[in-house]
């Protein structure tokens, strides 16, 4: 049963409605409110069934970016216990991209995007309203009821909460915008949108760079690092003052000359636990044998790339990675040739191991995350193209051997996992 469902068993005399003018001899109707609170829904919609002892149990929340839903994984039980709709735009494909849970606030946040491909064909749709704004939604952790929403820009890509959980940062992987304004770099830029996590008011819109995707916030919450796919750069955005500044640092020497066809395509970011390094995973639009994807360290103390900690020698394109528990290595999911690589976090930098997965083990690994139980959880997109839309899954990896030891089924094109204990 839903823990928030209240059953107030008292009479409440709510309304007195005077019918006609208030004079003598009038008929006055007094309405008696029922004993259930309004909109308390007769049915319980909570995914969470506290059964003594599970209150501290951990769950994984997975955004299904092509399925209008978030899947809830019971890590201990080893199964997916719920798949809950999160969209707010009727009939459309509401694609949640990445997510975060604030347990203390009892909230789940996820930005919804409405990709051009989701606009169906019809005479009016074809007139081209494909750039509808995204929506950041805030839903209750216990039963996913809608708590708030804020319009963001079109094609939100990634979101992160500030360390103090007061602000939500949303990036926009807006390739449509980049293509719509050839030659006009300013107009091509996507914005960092900042939303107040409590009120869900959009407080700031900062134009940053072309098609930004992955984001990392500094431990003090004053700096946001963004992967600028179209610019071949990292953006260092200071957000601690009323006058934000944006500093673009090219991955290799210079910004991409044509932002719709970058050379490197920085896509995903992975922070070090001490905040001194942000690892940049590049996903080149035209991969070649010599450039399947650059994986390189960005030193946040100097705001420079550290070429001594970089490789283009991975067997696939790197995505969202994670640090090992001891901090000595980073494990990186790879696509193209689907697999994982382990690279050293401490100098000297080297690729320690690489292994490929069969398509049953993991198809299109997107994000790797170290779970609260020490195991690795690998979000596998599965097959999703124009022809086939199959469900993805989350593979469980042994932290030492990186062998696949388990699997949770989720929805279509999962793109992120976030761990939290159940509602408080």
């Amino acid at each position: 049963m839903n823990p928030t469902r209240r059953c107030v068993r008292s009479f409440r005399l709510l309304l007195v409605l005077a019918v006609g003018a208030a004079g003598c001899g009038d008929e006055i109707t007094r309405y008696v409110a029922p004993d259930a609170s309004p909109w308390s829904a007769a049915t319980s919609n909570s995914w969470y069934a506290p059964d003594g002892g599970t209150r501290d149990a951990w769950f994984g929340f997975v955004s299904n970016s092509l399925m209008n839903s978030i899947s809830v994984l019971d890590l201990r039980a080893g199964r997916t216990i719920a798949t809950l709709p999160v969209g707010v735009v009727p009939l459309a494909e509401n694609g949640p991209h990445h997510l975060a849970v604030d347990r203390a606030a009892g909230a789940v946040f996820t930005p919804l995007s409405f990709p051009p491909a989701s606009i169906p064909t019809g005479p009016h749709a074809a007139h081209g309203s494909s750039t509808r704004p995204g929506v950041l939604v805030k839903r209750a952790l216990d039963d996913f009821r809608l708590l708030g929403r804020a319009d963001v820009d079109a094609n939100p890509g990634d979101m992160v909460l500030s360390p103090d959980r007061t602000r939500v940062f949303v990036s926009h992987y807006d390739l449509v915008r980049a293509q719509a304004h050839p030659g006009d770099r300013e107009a091509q830029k996507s914005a960092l949108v900042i939303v107040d996590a409590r009120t869900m008011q959009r407080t700031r819109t900062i134009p940053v760079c072309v098609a930004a995707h992955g984001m990392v916030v500094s431990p003090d919450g004053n700096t946001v690092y963004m992967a600028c796919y179209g610019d071949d750069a990292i953006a260092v955005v200071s957000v601690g003052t009323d006058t934000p500044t944006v500093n673009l640092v090219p991955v290799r020497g210079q910004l991409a000359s044509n932002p719709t066809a970058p050379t490197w395509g920085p896509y995903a970011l992975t922070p070090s636990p001490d905040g001194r390094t942000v690892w940049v995973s590049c996903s080149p639009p035209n991969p070649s044998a010599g450039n399947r994807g650059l994986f390189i360290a960005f030193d946040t103390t100097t705001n420079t790339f550290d070429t001594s900690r970089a490789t283009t020698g991975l067997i696939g394109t790197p995505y969202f990675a994670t640090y090992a528990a001891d901090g000595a290595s980073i494990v990186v999911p790879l696509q193209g040739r689907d697999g994982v690589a382990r690279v050293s976090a401490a100098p000297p930098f080297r690729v320690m191991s690489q292994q490929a997965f069969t398509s049953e083990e993991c198809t299109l690994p997107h994000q790797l995350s170290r779970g609260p139980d020490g195991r690795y959880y690998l979000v596998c997109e599965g097959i999703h193209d124009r022809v086939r839309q199959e469900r993805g899954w989350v593979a469980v990896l042994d932290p030492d051997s990186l062998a696949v030891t388990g699997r949770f089924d989720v929805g279509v094109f999962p793109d992120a996992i976030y761990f939290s204990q159940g509602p408080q």
Partner: protein
Amino acid sequence: MKTWMGAVALACATLSCGDTERVEPLAARGALLASDPRITRSQYNAFACLTCHSVDDPPAGGRVYPGASLRGAARRPTYWSGEVTHLREAVERCWTGFMRGVATDLDGPDGQALSAWLDSLAPEGSTAGTAAVTRTYPRVVRDPGVGDRTRGLAVWGRACASCHGAVGTGAGRIGPLTSVLPRDTLAEHCDDNFTDVGYADLQAYLRASVTEKTRHGSFLGYAGVMPPFANETLTDDEVRDLAALFVCP
């Protein structure tokens, strides 16, 4: 539970100077509000809940409502064909999307009355209408082909006349912002460059436009406040016959 339901009756108590007091459940007020377009406080809204929903399923061949019947709705596991799991959110979509209301008003006295009314249509222990309702909205909309005008007029009477009034004149339409059809659509589209969007001739393009508006209402790239009509509420044949009412000069 729901003790108030028993205490419904008109408990008429005589007040000081001859006023009479009737005591009624809040659900009764909700029932009145369900037919009242003023409930959302928008001067532009002409719709009431019962413009688009009936309480019980209408008889076959009777009026066609775009929204599901509301008996039992409060106990359904999901709404809007699985897109929503909370009753308030299901109603909020209608309230803000069709009726131009402000979402937070649903938590005010009128919203509470509506909630009580919906609850009263789904009393504890009842099963009527409590299964989830499925509606299918075709994403891809094409020219349905040439239909039958006479049959189209009959469908119009069941599905469209309640808002748009009489074909041609719009007599009796629900509000001044509701299109007069087919006039407004012809004025808007009969000089479009339809080849832009890949239709063989103007009539085919127009039929596809009417089909799209009927199937998607104000959603999926269209705008406005008209509700969408799913496959379950109007068949493809019925939509084709409706489209036959729209002919460019």
